[in-house]
């Protein structure tokens, strides 16, 4: 998302209205090259993004694959009500909020802490090495990560082998088979994969702190910890607050691939989130209307959250996120 503070740079709204029709035409003719480019781009977005949107009407219809959308019978809010009444609803909402909540709680501070630790390293090459290594997992696909997790945490995986050979447990621990481990596992996997990558933004924010502040701090007698607490953290607080708020706007996006790849029947009560639920009914089982209704509901809530946070940051913090 675009992070910018200078709202004065935003385009002047209502520019066109100030002109008369004639002037407007003249202007468009003057801008013809831009409009030709725009039209090409609009054709693309019209075809690939807007045209398929007519499909959301099937959320309000009982669509059976093979019918045309207009043939399908109207059912109003039936599928929305079915979702709210389904015994899966509380579970799906709980899991979505729990997984993204844990991500905010632990996955959010992880890159900040990592950035602070890396920043304190004095030897330049060690610093570069740690940074380079920490980005690696970002480039590894979830498919591979899932395979790594299976070979480490499976019933006969490395961790269980070690636990048993040290006589910590006698039976293997079902990290992948017991729901109670799932949230922890997926949070840890998210941190493993993205903490290093996330630290980039904080490290560069730290690099942007004015050198004079450090000098002033030293004059005031700040020690090492004091420097972190009174200079560095306030220096990056803008970035932290902004990303936190954006994270809250994303709270319904608790992941999709991770759950599909790592979840199984035994952990379903803990992994099923809105996106996987919509996929399961909407795509795999072919009840497209149901899946569309669930996705639509999620989309509406997400957009409201995004616009709310955007409004909030602009009004209260003078930061525009969009």
């Amino acid at each position, binding site marked *: *998302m675009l*992070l910018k*503070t200078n709202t004065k740079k935003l*385009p002047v709204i209502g520019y066109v209205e100030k002109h008369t029709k004639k002037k*407007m035409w003249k202007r*468009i003719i003057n*801008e013809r*090259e*831009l*409009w030709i*480019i*725009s039209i090409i*781009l609009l054709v*693309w*977005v019209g*075809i*690939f*993004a*807007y*045209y*398929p*949107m007519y*499909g*959301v009407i*099937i959320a309000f219809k009982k669509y059976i694959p093979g019918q045309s*959308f207009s043939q399908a019978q109207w059912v109003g809010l039936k599928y929305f009500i079915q979702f709210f009444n389904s015994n899966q609803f509380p579970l799906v909402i709980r899991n979505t909020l729990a997984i993204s909540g844990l991500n905010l709680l632990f996955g959010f501070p992880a890159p900040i802490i*990592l950035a602070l*630790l*890396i920043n*304190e*390293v004095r030897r330049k090459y060690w610093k570069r*090495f*740690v940074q380079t290594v*920490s*980005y690696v997992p*970002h480039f*590894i696909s979830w*498919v*591979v990560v*899932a395979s*790594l997790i299976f*070979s480490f945490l499976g019933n*006969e995986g*490395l961790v269980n*082998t070690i636990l048993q050979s040290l006589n910590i447990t006698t039976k293997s621990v079902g990290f992948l088979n017991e729901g109670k481990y799932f949230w922890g596992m997926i949070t840890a996997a998210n941190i493993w994969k993205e903490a290093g990558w996330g630290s*980039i933004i904080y490290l*560069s924010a730290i*690099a*942007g702190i004015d050198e004079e502040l*450090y000098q002033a*701090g*030293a004059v005031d007698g700040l*020690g*090492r910890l004091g420097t972190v607490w009174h200079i560095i953290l306030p220096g990056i607080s*803008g970035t932290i607050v902004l990303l936190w708020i954006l994270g809250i706007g994303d709270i319904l996006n608790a992941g999709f691939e991770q759950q599909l*790849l790592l979840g199984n029947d035994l952990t379903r009560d803990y992994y099923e989130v809105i996106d996987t639920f919509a996929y399961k009914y*909407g795509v795999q089982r072919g009840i497209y209307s149901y*899946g*569309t209704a669930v996705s639509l509901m999620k989309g509406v809530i997400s*957009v409201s959250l995004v616009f709310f946070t955007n409004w909030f940051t602009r009004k209260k913090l003078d930061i525009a996120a969009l």
Partner: protein
Amino acid sequence: MRNYYKEGPASKLFDVFNTIILALIVFLVVYPLWNQLAISFNNNNVAASRNIYFYPKAFTLTNYEFVFTNSSILEGAKVSFLRVIIGTAGTLLCTGLLAYITTIRNFSGRKFMRRVFVITMYFSGGLIPTYLLMVQLKLINTFWVYIVPNLINAYFMLLIASFIQNIPESMFEAARMDGASELQIYFKTVLPICIPVFSAVAVYAAVGHWNAWFDCMIYNADGKWDTLQIILRRLLLEQEAFQKIHNELIAASKFRNLTSEGLRAATTMIVTVPILCIYPFFQKYFISGITIGAVKG
């Protein structure tokens, strides 16, 4: 950064502590891959893979030999490679152009264009209408289904536009005075200046293209344009690995000592090592690109 604060013993102690912590983090990142590397070189029938921690106990190359000779992994890599290059280049050029025209201050349609695309970040028509569209456009079972629908990305547009907005307007004005068309300005002025942000977006786009498998499964199910990830999914998660050995066992006793763990590890290595070799060279560019927003925040 120079240190202005006074050094105390606690500070020295912290350095030790910090080194240990970071070493531990490095270990946590590297070890899983290292372990797989060891397993991939291990003859898992001689020494069970579960007892391999740091180095192979009975060295063999058969796992790699098997993966290369018995799977379409190279074919898939070729498709993925093409996809990443063409897809990333296409996305950069088209999204960059869009971002540029949304920043031209005198352009009356800039806000409209921007909004039209931002909305697409939050709403989509869902799978079925999109699938039907691809059928109508005859993109099913073609390579272009990976490229064309991904040409413009609203999020990247925002990222690039924020960078362009910080370039002094006078640079473009000067070009316009000289009679350059907007496309010329885009290619001759905007592109070179925007290299930091383009390289950051390129990394995002390339990683996205490299890791995508869902569109391949839905749109190109006939297997002609299988990407690496879809082949990986088959090999790593759907256990085709073992089925393959099982068939081959009968035919060729040479591969008798293979296990699915070994094959999976070899496959993991084959797809991970190239990335590890390439990305450090781009590190500098994507870091500077990602930094753009942050520093001003």
